[in-house]
């Protein structure tokens, strides 16, 4: 995963609340066991078609939206679509929990701002914005706003760590846990007869 420190690029403004993962990538585009590369062209397809969302433009890599962004299904394809299009940071007053966690796994920063700051950023005409993960600020024109992010996620994004490698290094702790657990909860194994 590519480490993230700071990103400066055009800001996509999406003044919509409750944008769910079905909007980020409609289910019908997931009918093939295809690779996530190429999902970017389906991003926000239906919201753009009905005129609720502006079409994402090449070069935009930061997105700001209203509350509860990425709610709904756990489909990581929603983040694949964003990342494949080129997005590296999403800004909103609140996020769907699983979506935000999926963002981090794919090197995309979920930046939580206050409702007022989200409205300020949404109100700015197309200027480039800068998301600074170390300073935890978003700058756009002469507006600079702070954002919140889980400190663990921040470290992961700054370092570009891969979870599976970290965990495989814990093999001893896991073995100790399971040895104890089998003795304490013998009933927890699925019955097979």
């Amino acid at each position, binding site marked *: 995963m590519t480490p993230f420190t700071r990103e400066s690029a055009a800001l996509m403004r999406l*003044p919509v*609340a*409750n944008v*769910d993962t*079905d*909007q980020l990538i*409609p*289910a*019908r585009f*997931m*009918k*093939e*066991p295809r*690779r996530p590369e190429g999902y970017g062209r389906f991003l926000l397809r*239906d919201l753009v078609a*009905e005129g*609720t969302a502006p079409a994402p433009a090449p070069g935009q890599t930061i997105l700001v939206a*209203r*509350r*509860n962004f990425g*709610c*709904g*299904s*756990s*489909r*990581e*394809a929603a*983040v694949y679509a964003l990342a494949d299009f080129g997005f590296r940071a999403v800004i909103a007053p*609140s*996020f*769907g*929990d*699983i979506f935000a*966690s*999926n963002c981090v*796994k*794919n090197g995309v920063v979920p930046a939580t701002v206050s*409702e007022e700051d989200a409205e300020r950023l949404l109100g700015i005409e197309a200027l480039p914005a800068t998301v600074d993960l170390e300073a935890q600020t978003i700058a756009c024109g002469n507006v600079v706003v702070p954002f919140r992010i889980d*400190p*663990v996620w921040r*470290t992961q994004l700054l370092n570009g760590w891969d*979870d*599976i490698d*970290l*965990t*495989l290094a*814990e093999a001893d*702790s*896991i073995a100790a*846990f*399971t040895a104890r*657990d089998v003795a304490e*909860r*013998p*009933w*927890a*194994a*699925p*019955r*097979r007869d």
Partner: protein
Amino acid sequence: MNSPASLFDRLWDRHVVKRREDGLSLLWIDRHFVHEGSHHAFGQIAARGAKVARPDLTFGVADHYVPTRGRGGPVPDASIARMVDQLSANTAAHGITLFGLDDPRQGIVHVTGTEQGLTLPGLTVVCGDSHTSTHGAFGAYAFGIGASEVAHVLATQTLWQKKPKRMRISVEGATAPGITAKDIMLTIIATIGADGAAGHAIEYAGTAIRALSMEGRMTLCNMSIEAGGRCGMVAPDGTTVAYLKGRPFAPDGALWDRAQEDWAGLASDADAVFDREVALEAAVIAPTVTWGVSPEQALPITAAVPDPEAMADPVKAAAARDAIAYMGLTPGQPLASVPVDRVFIGSCTNSRIEDLRAAAKVLAGHRARVPGMVSPGSSLVKQQAEEEGLARIFTEAGLEWVASGCSMCVGMNGDTVPAGERCASTTNRNFKGRQGPGARTHLMSPAMVAAAAVTGKLTDVRQFA
């Protein structure tokens, strides 16, 4: 003396393999369900040459893409056939038990997994599907994960997690006749908002929750995600134990006795502390329907479509304006007058035997005025419903009785609501396009959907009592 603990604290503590300085904990996962959509994760572990760490704790179910018609024959849509075949190939390659397309136990993962007794109190349960929260009804810590996390669980049987905050939602008193778990949950979501429980593990408590059957508790926990919660749970009790006894994968003999002793100690202490408490009065809950495109846009059936111009919050007003336009409604229009074009009974929210009985009770002796589809939650529920004569009631009413799968909940298998049509649905998401591009979804209980089928419009089911 130990400090007081909540059910969630106990579940969490019991599964911590390792606690890291930064606040992340490595959690042991007791059950992992995979479905057709899990192919990205299998691809990720194949790419790193990893094996599935614990195939014995991993179970596959074909549900998201499976056809609901013409079962037993070849799958007509080539891309859907490939999704289903890929799941069979991935599970076979790793020695994972699969409830595949032609297995008599096949069904929606959250219906099959629970009815097989795979989900037990005190377990951690994950699946690459947000409605994994359903399994919390048993007093398990059950949550949906993304594809990268699915790959992580496949490779290690663990997950790095940050402990969510604790929230207790209490519903006290008795509900009025005809009020179901779905009405309770839609009312909760309308009250706290679709992100009202974000970052929280919800425990449902109170006399109205205790009174619910396991089916009702599953409906409730299922939609925790629609309230923004990480998971939802109900402490195990006699209802839980009675449901689990004799289920195929549940413990038996001496292990069953030992399990019951452990489960008895799971409930929250009387003085357990929660980060947030919400209390609702059961008696005021009415049959509830959604009018918009977020589950929080829900009202009693006796209410009218709200007027965005009268809303104080400009962001809420903008969302309502957009929702009303998409849904083709008019502010001030009584909800109970809105005509529907079709109905759907199914999904992991409301497709269990009790749901089908409730719908059949309303439909018995009537003809549906609109077309519709009934998809049981599992192939075993289908069989039972046929034996009980429920299937006949549905077909005699003119509804289509089909095989089990996610079907019209998400439309991935081609069961969709045509653009512009309005569907009364027992599912969990009324998002734009969820049931098909341009589809208009109203969420409600199975009995309310049945009532809408009979009258051809959104209807207060209490007039059928």
